[in-house]
């Protein structure tokens, strides 16, 4: 252990100061008992000193029968830090809505203390429970312990990534459909696609109960399922009055911020031109006791968002303006499979669905997945006049008429 020598971590110690909870304190809390955590601390101190990471991506590792769920990670200084020479991560599929009981947390803690670094992320960016760091020979035993405790691995690589959702109807009055149920159902329906990668690249589902989109589905999911409604906003007049009496400036704070200026306050009553309401949620957010989404609820399905790699970042765009979300969710699943079929056949290696949609053009993409083009799918019609008409009349035909 040449460089990890005296075990001191003066740079990281600086990060134990201050009011915000410290990840260094977390690592130290297990470092005494756990050699992997101890080595991680030393290696990280070195990264802080040298301003460079010391991990490399390596060969594919995993558990038997699965093509994903484990991220292979190796230190580039294995001789000096043998305890983190392998430091693979397991992605564990979280329960919908990230609910736990104290016992389920203890179960996870016990098994990860036994088999790995004792360090986790609650949770990773996609939503999984992240078990940070263990060696190749511990993967199978960890997997066994997990499945015995009722947990399973999440996705990694070119597959369905672990679906995730907002808290939805479990606690939020704005949820326009049951996000937890849909997320769980999709997760179970697509176990094979989740565990055995065979797509061109990754595919993420995120389920948000309303347009506030607390899970960033519109920015971070290939398929964004965002709750909405299509009838009138429900208004409790007495409660509106109570807000006004309480000193709320409804004119400025509510009406002034409505994107389509479809909500008016006449000093006594609120008047909403529901045909022009774009379901942005602002007025409801501001007056939760007085206003709520309508009763005819469902979701908007949008497709294609992703971070910049490869062709630039994309925000999902509308595919289905309104759909009822009810078990067994056949329509969503059939749509998804049509998209996967086309993508599987025509997607290039590492090409996300959103990029494919842009490459072939939304119009052509819609034909392939058998959806009619409708104006809800665009911000505005084309501005450029270079239209690829697919056919034209020939003189003969015209004369023949």
């Amino acid at each position, binding site marked *: 252990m040449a460089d990890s020598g005296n075990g001191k971590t003066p740079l990281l110690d600086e990060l134990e100061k201050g009011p915000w909870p410290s990840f260094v304190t977390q690592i130290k809390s297990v470092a005494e008992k756990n050699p992997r955590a101890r080595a991680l601390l030393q290696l990280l101190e070195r*990264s802080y000193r040298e301003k460079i990471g010391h991990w*490399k*991506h390596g060969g594919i590792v995993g558990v038997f*029968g699965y093509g994903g769920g484990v991220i292979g990670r190796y230190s580039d200084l294995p001789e000096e830090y043998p305890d983190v020479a392998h430091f693979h991560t397991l992605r564990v599929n979280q329960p919908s809505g990230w609910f736990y009981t104290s016992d389920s947390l203890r179960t996870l803690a016990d098994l990860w203390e036994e088999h790995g670094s004792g360090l986790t992320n609650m949770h990773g960016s996609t939503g999984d429970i992240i078990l940070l760091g263990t060696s190749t020979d511990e993967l199978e035993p960890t997997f066994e312990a997990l499945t015995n405790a009722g947990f399973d691995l999440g996705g990694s690589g070119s597959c369905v990534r672990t679906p995730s959702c907002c808290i939805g109807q479990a606690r939020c009055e704005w949820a326009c459909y049951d996000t937890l149920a849909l997320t*769980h159902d999709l997760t179970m329906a697509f*176990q094979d696609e989740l565990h055995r990668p065979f797509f061109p690249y990754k595919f993420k589902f995120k389920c948000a109960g309303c347009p506030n989109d607390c899970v960033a589905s519109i920015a971070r999911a290939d398929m964004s399922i965002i709750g909405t409604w299509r009838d009138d906003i429900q208004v409790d007049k007495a409660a509106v009055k109570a807000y006004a009496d309480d000193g709320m400036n409804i004119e400025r704070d509510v009406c002034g911020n409505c994107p389509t200026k479809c909500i008016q306050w006449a000093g006594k009553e609120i008047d909403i031109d529901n045909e022009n309401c774009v379901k942005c949620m602002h007025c409801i957010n501001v007056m939760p006791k007085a206003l709520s989404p309508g009763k005819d609820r469902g979701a908007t399905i949008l497709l294609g968002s992703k971070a910049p*790699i490869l062709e630039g970042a994309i925000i999902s765009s509308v595919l289905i303006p309104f759909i009822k979300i009810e078990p067994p969710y056949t329509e969503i699943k059939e749509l998804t499979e049509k998209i996967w079929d086309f993508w599987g056949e025509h997607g290039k290696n590492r090409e996300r669905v959103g990029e494919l949609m842009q490459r072939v053009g939304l119009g052509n993409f819609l034909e392939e997945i058998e959806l009619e083009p409708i104006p809800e799918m665009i911000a505005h019609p084309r501005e450029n006049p270079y239209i690829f008409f697919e056919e034209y009349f020939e003189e003969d035909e015209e004369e023949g008429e």
Partner: protein
Amino acid sequence: MAEAKERKTDIGPPHYEKLMPPIIKKNYGKWKYHERLKPGVLVHVAESGDKLFTVRAGSPRLVSVEYLRKYAELADKYCDGYLRFTSRNNVEFLLTDESKIDPLIKELKSEGFPVGGVGAAISNIVHTQGWVHCHSAATDASGIVKSVMDDLHEYFAGKEVPGKLRIALACCLNMCGAVHCSDIAILGIHRRPPRIDHSNLNKVCEIPNVIASCPTGAIRPATVDGQSSVEVEEDRCMFCANCYTVCPSMPLNDPLNDGLSIWVGGKVSNARSEPRFSKLAIPYIPNNPPRWPEVVEAVRNIVEVWVKHARKYERMGEFIDRIGWPRFFKLTGIEFSKEHIDDYKYAGLTYKRSAQLRHS
């Protein structure tokens, strides 16, 4: 292999219903409204009249098993063992007994967990792995987040702000985390073309894949010292590290040049204005561990300008819409440079294409 037969696979996650408190099961889908009682505390009132109290505490995301047990212990003591996590890595304790809120908060605080992040507040920073665990990191994630949140914690704990402000950090352009649509985004960047390990490249990587991975077509086949390899046309490289993702022999990590950029004005919520991308505010700040004071200062500066000048409910991007970019740069004192001007695909759409300008 008798053992292999017993092996359980494809069982999926535990069903959420088994992990929910009875009050949620009972009132599922029948919540009426919610209110913020005080910083970090929500009450949700059901049609039945039942009340669920949520106490939200910040966490460092990187959590040890010791602390998981601590969360479990607190949940047992105050809320029959029921808790959850949020999409921003906060922990929420789900209480039915209002009288236990204050004792729980007291104990959380004494254990070093700040309570807050609810409603119009600065919540926890969504972030990535950094030097703790990732191969392509241009910076550490946890250390910067800790330093920035130390500095902003009063805003998490309830100091008044105009509206929601969401901060995210990613340690490379892969952007694991909603960095591209955050009010303030801290993004690790490389600034030097890949250094090619010619002696190994041919052994570990498929050359056609490497060439195809480059979005700008900067990579060409080459023979170096008799070995098939590739070369990079340096002035076409935009340091995206795509090549490194498919080929470990093309590392971009470089202590001298790696650092951070700061982006502003993105959002994912549909409230008021449509979701949108974050835009570049500061092209480059060098890495300065362990506490990255320049990054902390840059974020605080932007936050303070927003706190001082934004109207109620205005997110960062909406605020900038109203005052205009020139004034954003003036108010923040951030220098505008060539790097701020887009030069990738459709860059022309980002030029100012009107004479609507403010001249004061």
